[in-house]
């Protein structure tokens, strides 16, 4: 299935620093998978390996496989830009393009990644993406205003709409609500719920309640000793991870004993 991602023994480094090691996981299509774990355990690094963003850091390296759409995205003949079009990303801090209007922000991927479309198709894509991101009603009368003029929560939904516009199969979200107030967080969680039908979502979150609310599957990452790389301790249906995890560390983390 196009939306599933399987990693085999995935490890990532920053120069000499081993950030994650030996992670094998099968992310199920059209489900929400949450990644939890204490700060610095490699959640962001792992996520960025899934769409080849990790390699943008100078000196960064990966080993192992990431199988998506039937092939290893790290195979030599695979183009990173194709991977990133199919596996979109939403960042921790909203990062709309400051000089572009709201509409241009949403259509940026379509306009700049090669696929030329006519004006009306572009407008349709903008409206469809903004509706999906539950932002349409708030911005439909000011599409030409700069993206930076929106509130933080709206900017984050604009970034979600921007990622959706290029029609990816998978959306990676790295703590998308950590900079937002509860009301905006709620809106984004609602959006994720809606998106689930057509997209695979992987979300990194620090917030246990959020992981419990939005995800179908949960993976717990942990650095067992300082200086060691982060590893996947446990992975399974969220209901199981949250009620009867197999590992003591998982239980401790979820019940808030550390992290």
């Amino acid at each position, binding site marked *: 299935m196009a939306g599933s991602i399987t990693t085999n023994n995935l490890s990532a480094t920053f120069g000499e620093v081993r950030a994650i090691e030996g992670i094998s996981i099968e992310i199920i299509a059209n489900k929400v998978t949450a990644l939890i774990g204490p700060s610095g355990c490699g959640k962001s690094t792992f996520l960025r390996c899934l769409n080849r*963003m990790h390699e*943008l850091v100078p000196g960064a390296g990966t080993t192992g496989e990431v199988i998506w759409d039937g092939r290893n995205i790290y195979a030599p003949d695979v183009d990173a830009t194709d991977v*990133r079009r199919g596996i979109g990303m939403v960042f921790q801090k909203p990062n709309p*393009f400051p*000089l572009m209007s709201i509409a241009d922000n949403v259509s940026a991927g379509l306009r*700049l*990644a090669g696929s030329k479309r006519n004006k009306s198709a572009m407008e349709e894509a903008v409206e469809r993406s903004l509706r999906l991101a539950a932002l349409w009603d708030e911005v439909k009368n000011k599409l030409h205003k700069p993206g930076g003029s929106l509130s933080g929560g709206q900017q984050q939904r604009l970034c979600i709409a921007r990622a959706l516009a290029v029609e990816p199969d998978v959306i990676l979200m790295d703590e998308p609500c950590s900079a937002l107030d509860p009301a905006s967080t709620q809106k984004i969680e609602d959006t994720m719920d809606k998106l689930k039908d057509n997209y695979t979502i992987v979300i990194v979150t620090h917030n246990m309640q959020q992981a419990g609310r939005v995800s179908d599957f949960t993976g717990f990452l942990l650095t067992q000793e300082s200086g060691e790389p982060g590893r996947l301790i446990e992975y399974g249906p969220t209901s199981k991870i949250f009620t009867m995890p197999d590992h003591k560390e998982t239980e401790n983390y979820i019940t808030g004993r550390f992290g």
Partner: protein
Amino acid sequence: MNNGFNRRRRNAISGLAYLLCVLATIIALIPLMLILFYVISQGAPALNLDFLTQLPKPVGETGGGMGNAIVGSLMLIGIAAVVGLPLGVLAGTYLAEFRSPRLSWTVRLLADILSGVPSIIIGVFVYTLLVLTMKHFSALAGGVALAILMLPTVARTTEEMLRMVPDTLREASLALGIPRWRTIVSIIIKTAGGGIITGIMLALARIAGETAPLLFTALSSRTWPTGLDKPVASLPVQIYTYAISPYEDWHQQAWAGSLVLVIMVLLLSVGSKLYFGRKMRSVR
């Protein structure tokens, strides 16, 4: 009581420091004010339509103007822009976006050295490179000399402006599957555009008044510009020639030429400030 004394003492010291700052600023501004005042008072009387549109008259005849030098200066700046801007912007982009440590370090060092090379040496260099090989002085040689002069400024400003664009925007763009070159051209350079244009205008203002490199390259001319491969008049060289001449009305014209040059430079630098200010407001 002791505290009160200390506070008064502190206030006195900070008041004094403030006064010194104001004084230093005024002293620094005095030369600028004097120059402007002097150039305007001496140049304005000789400035008229004829001066802006007419060719110079032979010695002994009154009237005439520096029309050819004004056009020539614009032509030289134009050549410098066409040659220097693409190179400078590309070099700056390379420095900022393709961070290969060793080569970037070398290029940056070379740019810094180049910006410290006296402009007359650049004139001599272009003289050897273009004038001797083409066998005559030319507008092209003058423009190239000015282009070399502005190259380091344009490259370093471009680099600095591109570096000010946060990495989060690069990542946002790349994560959409937008190719690297497209990200640089359509997102990064566009975002930094206001700053780059400001830098370019300041660099143009800076070369507009250069005299030394033109003496060996564009030389001068008493006719309208006739082609890229011919010598051409320019305001700075014309001012220089007239100012050291023994004729009173040429001195007058040199002042008027200076005023025109100062106005051109002010328009460029003030224009760039206004432009940058507007651009920055729209980013926020």
